[in-house]
């Protein structure tokens, strides 16, 4: 196979095989005995648009189902969702993007699950939380009816078709149609009890997203009552938002966008006292890295000391509420080890940080990004790589050594033997 390079250069490469591509990750896992440690990846992805022919039939509305089926029949891959322009593959430098279609999988198994298990096995990941990719842009869809229909169809497909094929190794936090609070509640009530559902996810790439609106209180309460998690998954928005239209390079829109949206919505979440209203609701902020968290803690605490009259529900500093919440690791900024250590201290990483790979996206992180940090205790490594998530999502160990380690560090929440 050939990749597009500069000018007339022809670069020959093998077809994609995820296990072969990640063989160095397997070597790392073997050297570090990762099989003895439960590893949970709270943020991994697949490309749901490649499954739209199977997903769209789950739409409830006859008209939108017909519109969508006609659309994907015309285009082949489907353009029923809003798209987000970007250069994630860096001009083909991240080869799994242009080569994805070349990977061979057995016809008897769902392709996305087969590929998912290949990278999970290579990294020694025991469980992964599966998220869509394109549907992270669902908040920008101009048709709110389509937002509801697509979320419903995807959530039925993923819980009824995809997750069951993973034999319990994949779970999900299901995408909510946040533009419609009543539909969100229906999603929670319908899907909240299903196997493989660890919670619900709100994609934060939205121009107008009042997380504090009274219309959502029933939704948050329903999630909290079920003992599930609420996650906010960030993203970028290059070209559809006035804020980032001044970015001429993708690096700028991407680097800023992921942090920006989580900063925006977490701020509204905290200053409106959501931590006081739903103290038992685990809230997770996903895929914005970590460097923004200390910044925001200091910024909000500084203003809170002066303007507490605007935040009467708060009984402690904003940073204290932020330390009650959870954060996923990736894309972890490992550039200044002292700064990273400070960040871990400020967010109580030992109990609040959850490893995530974001695979197969271009800036994925391996478990070794956590296990190799020189300032972490063994307890912190075990907790962050899987123990915290094991408690949060009631995930059982997959072997006896993992069970021993979960007990050792107080993380055994579920046991396969029970």
């Amino acid at each position, binding site marked *: 196979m050939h*990749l597009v*390079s*500069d*000018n007339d*250069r*022809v*670069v*020959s*490469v093998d077809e994609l095989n995820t296990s072969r*591509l990640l*063989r*160095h*990750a397997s*070597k*790392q896992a073997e050297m570090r005995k990762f099989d003895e440690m439960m590893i949970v990846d709270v943020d991994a992805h697949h490309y749901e648009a490649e499954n739209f022919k199977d997903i769209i039939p789950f739409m409830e509305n006859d008209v939108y189902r017909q519109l969508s089926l006609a659309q994907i029949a015309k285009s082949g891959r489907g353009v029923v969702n809003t798209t987000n322009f970007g250069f994630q593959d*860096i*001009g*083909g*430098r*991240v*080869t*799994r993007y242009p080569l994805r279609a070349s990977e061979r999988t057995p016809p008897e198994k769902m392709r996305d699950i087969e590929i998912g298990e290949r990278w999970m096995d290579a990294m020694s990941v025991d469980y992964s939380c599966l998220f869509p990719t394109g549907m992270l842009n669902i908040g920008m869809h101009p048709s709110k009816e389509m937002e509801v229909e697509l979320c419903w169809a995807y959530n039925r497909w993923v819980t009824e078709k995809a997750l069951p094929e993973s034999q319990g190794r994949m779970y999900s936090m299901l995408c909510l149609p946040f533009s419609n609070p009543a539909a969100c509640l229906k999603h929670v009530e319908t899907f909240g009890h299903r196997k493989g559902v660890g919670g619900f996810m709100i994609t934060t790439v939205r121009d107008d997203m009042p997380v504090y609106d009274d219309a959502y209180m029933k939704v948050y309460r329903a999630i909290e009552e079920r003992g599930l998690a609420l996650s906010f998954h960030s993203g970028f928005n290059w070209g559809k938002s006035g804020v980032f239209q001044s970015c001429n390079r993708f690096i700028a829109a991407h680097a800023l966008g992921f942090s920006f949206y989580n900063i925006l919505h977490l701020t509204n979440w905290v200053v409106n006292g959501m931590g006081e209203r739903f103290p038992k609701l685990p809230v997770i902020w996903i895929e914005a890295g970590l460097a923004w968290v200390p910044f925001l803690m200091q910024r909000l605490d500084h203003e809170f000391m002066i303007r507490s009259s605007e935040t009467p529900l708060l009984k402690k500093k904003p940073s204290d509420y932020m330390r009650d919440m959870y954060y996923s690791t990736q894309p972890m900024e490992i550039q200044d080890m002292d700064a990273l250590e400070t960040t871990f201290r400020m967010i109580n990483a030992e109990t609040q940080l959850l490893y995530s790979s974001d695979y197969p996206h*271009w*800036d*994925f*992180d*391996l478990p*070794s*990004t956590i296990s190799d940090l020189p300032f972490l205790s063994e307890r912190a490594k075990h907790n962050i790589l899987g123990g915290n998530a094991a408690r949060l999502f009631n995930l059982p160990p997959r072997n006896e050594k993992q069970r021993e380690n979960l007990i050792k560090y107080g993380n055994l929440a579920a046991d396969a033997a029970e």
Partner: protein
Amino acid sequence: MPEIFICKKSELQDGERKIVAVGEDEVGVFLHQGRYYAYSNFCLHQGGPACEGLIIAKTQELLNEDRTSQGLSFSKDQTNFVCPWHGYEYDIKTGECDSDRRLKLRSYQVVEKSSDIYVVS
């Protein structure tokens, strides 16, 4: 110093590379503009197969005298090979990371003997 056979010269064309095991290491051997270069195949970032991805000219942005940009273009002087995991780029002539030249892949000496090429481990 043991020499590890790579391949016949005829099996590696200019612009191509071969990946071979050298002890515990994997080595990428490149033939670029008539010269051989060999580097460890473990990326200095997260350990990806650094030598197995795209080979592409360095992207540059030249400025005019008045500091306005001439736009993006491909360098005619520098070629990089790119780790396929995340896109770390390395100068094919030095093994230095293009984003931070203090980072450098372990390099290996390549020797030619009649019609064969070897790396010195």
